[in-house]
């Protein structure tokens, strides 16, 4: 086929990804977005102008050679696309599904200036999925160095760190507190957005290929402390995430029917509560559900609620998202918000809860809210929501799910006094290297940044892995500070 001119490329429309029909998907937990077909992927790849100085790469936290892999997709050489991808990103099937591409690579794509950017995320996904099926690229491991590294937490940061460190020939033990690896990929993000077969496929492939020892049920801080790990290992990476939920300080938060998004999503995803009683862990859903917050976790909780209502035969129930700011400030990925609206989630913007009411048995019966309006910009640069006096109103609800962000779980810091933390409880670590204030301890991901994205955690895991390897190879000064 003759090469297209840039003009011709720009005439190709951005290829839509087929999705499950909104009415049908309300009643199942199957994946919503079905992935580009081969021909659509090739057409989408044709749209890339192959910029000599690609801006998209600047937007990628792990510096994937985006034009490179897209060119390989265009010429039908998926094996080459995988090779290019995996030099920077070991989990493309996951990133292709959960990265907020519209604020990263795709936001900087030159095509976006006049029209729509190249669908980089969709192309990444097709490459990742192809490799999950075909397994063309074995992960190669350098000869053994005899050095031992403990990676605490098997979420995005820990996984990538473990893979990168193991590839350098170091002996890696991956410690996970739950019974399944994956962290938020497993307990948090629902099946319909990120199938667990994809998560387990990526993880199992990596740990088998690289001989990583996975220890589940290992709650660090309890079964072993950080100090004990340092006795046994040459280096320790902390990728323990931000798992501690927050509730609002309002009356009624301990009523039956009030829960954290973490509890709700763990019951649904980790414990497969949507399959109760096939699986033993139940998950209760009311007819009138309200999710407080508007991040990705809130969207996940709301969309799980819709599905559970359908499956439990409460299909005429309502699911609300209550958010104190306006639509403009919603932090969730645009696609998640669109999908939630299509599925029937009702958004109550500029609304804030002030009290949860219950009956004599201690069950939730309603939530008192107050209307908000936007005032002057706050520290985050967003306009600060302020209550409208006298605007209180009651919502009849029976289930309240708090999705207000999370902070690091302090359990891992037991007897780890030399590890400095911020006043938000996050670990203080060098952004470039992941080094903490404790010798031979690195950290990255949400435990350092607070709740952020999967791919930024992966980027931190990768940078720390490079520094750990340089340290173990003796290329670096042992530790610049006195904390040894």
């Amino acid at each position, binding site marked *: 086929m003759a090469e297209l001119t840039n003009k011709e490329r720009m005439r190709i429309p951005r290829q839509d990804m087929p999705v499950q029909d909104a009415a049908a998907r309300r009643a199942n937990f199957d994946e919503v977005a079905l992935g580009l077909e081969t021909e659509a992927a090739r057409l989408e790849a044709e749209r890339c102008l192959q910029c000599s100085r690609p801006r998209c790469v600047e937007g990628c936290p792990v510096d994937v050679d985006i034009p490179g892999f897209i060119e390989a997709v265009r010429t039908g050489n998926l094996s080459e696309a995988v090779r290019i991808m995996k030099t920077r990103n070991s989990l493309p099937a996951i990133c292709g599904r959960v990265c907020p591409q519209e604020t990263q690579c795709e936001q900087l794509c030159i095509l976006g200036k006049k029209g729509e950017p190249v669908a980089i995320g969709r192309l990444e996904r097709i490459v990742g999925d192809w490799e999950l099926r075909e397994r063309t690229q074995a992960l190669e491991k350098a000869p053994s160095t005899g050095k031992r590294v403990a990676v605490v937490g098997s979420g995005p940061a820990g996984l990538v760190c473990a893979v990168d460190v193991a590839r350098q020939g170091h002996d890696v033990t991956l410690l996970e507190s739950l019974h399944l690896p994956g962290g938020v990929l497993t307990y948090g993000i629902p099946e319909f957005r990120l199938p667990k077969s994809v998560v387990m496929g990526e993880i199992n492939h990596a740990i088998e290929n690289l001989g990583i020892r996975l220890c589940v049920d290992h709650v660090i801080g309890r079964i072993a402390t950080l100090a004990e790990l340092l006795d046994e290992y040459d280096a320790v990476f902390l990728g323990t995430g931000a798992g501690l*939920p927050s509730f609002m300080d309002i009356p009624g938060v301990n009523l039956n029917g009030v829960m954290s998004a973490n509890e709700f999503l763990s019951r649904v995803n980790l414990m497969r509560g949507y399959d*109760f009683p096939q699986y033993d862990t139940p998950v209760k859903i009311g007819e009138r559900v309200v999710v407080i917050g508007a991040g990705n976790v809130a969207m996940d909780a709301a969309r799980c609620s819709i599905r559970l209502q359908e499956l439990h035969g409460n299909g005429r129930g309502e699911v609300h998202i209550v958010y104190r700011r306006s639509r403009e400030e919603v932090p969730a990925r645009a696609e998640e918000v669109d999908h939630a609206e299509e599925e029937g989630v009702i958004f109550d913007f500029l609304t804030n809860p002030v009290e949860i009411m219950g009956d004599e048995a201690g069950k939730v019966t309603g939530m008192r809210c107050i209307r908000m309006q936007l005032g002057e910009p706050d520290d985050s640069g967003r306009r600060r929501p302020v209550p409208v006096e006298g605007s209180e109103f009651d919502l009849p609800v029976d289930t309240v799910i708090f999705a207000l962000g999370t902070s690091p779980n302090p359990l891992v810091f037991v007897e780890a006094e030399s590890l400095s933390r911020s006043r938000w409880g996050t670990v203080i670590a060098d952004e470039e290297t992941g080094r903490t204030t404790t010798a031979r301890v690195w950290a990255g991901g949400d435990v350092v940044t607070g709740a952020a994205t999967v791919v930024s955690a992966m980027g931190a895991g990768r940078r720390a892995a490079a520094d750990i390897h340089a340290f173990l190879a003796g290329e670096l000064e042992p530790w610049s500070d006195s904390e040894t």
Partner: protein
Amino acid sequence: MYEILHKERLNPTCHLMVVAAPGVARKARAGQFVIVRTDEYGERIPLTIADFDRDKGTITIILQEVGKSTMEMGTLRVGDGLATFAGPLGHPTEVQQYGTVACVGGGVGIAPLFPITRALKEAGNEVVSIIGARSSDLLFWEERMESVSNRLIVCTDDGSRGRQGVVTEPLTELLEERPGQIARVWAIGPAIMMKFASLATRPYKVPTIVSLNTIMVDGTGMCGGCRCLLEDGARFVCVDGPEFDGHKVDWDNLLSRQQFYREEEQQAVERWQHRCQLDEAVARGGS
């Protein structure tokens, strides 16, 4: 998998299991708990540690059949494995030399009370223990408790063993008999028993430690399903507890939260019992 090395039936609904879990045993201390799961389909259940042997690398748990998950776990045999055995979780009991202490156990609560009582005795305390159950066939570990107590009072609701009555009666008498001498009370058992034990000691201003058993998912501070209300706000039982000052606990909130999944539990039990009956019928060669 964590192998079940020994199993015995303590009473019609309670089983004792000794489980191989060297990592947990190495760190386990009185007052802590483990999260246990039977198989891939199972719930994560919090169970208090009833004993541990660091040399043998074992943990002893006592399982009371209250729902489908615990009933199913009760069918496991020696040599079978548990899919999950995570711990030791929660804060251990604060063991010091307090002087004279009372250890009060009700029903299955006697199991977690035992290692605490032993630790308190070893720390040089004079220990008065009070254990109770509905009837003699439900009572277990009387001898074990006796071996770690200076004095042991046994009671049953129906009088079939020891004195007739509930544990709060001898507890109140003890506080009356020895005013100002009981430094601390541990009360472990069903929530309702802990509530009344706390009410009994309150007028005497004796610090009373209870071990709360709430609904949990992860057991590591992640879900918050276990939260209980104290006078000064909510706490997570899994990471802030499981032991709390019984005088500060909002017992009615605790009791109501324990009931939240009752309907689903009932549904799961019925479904499971139905399946067991079918299995039996098939095994008998019936239709």
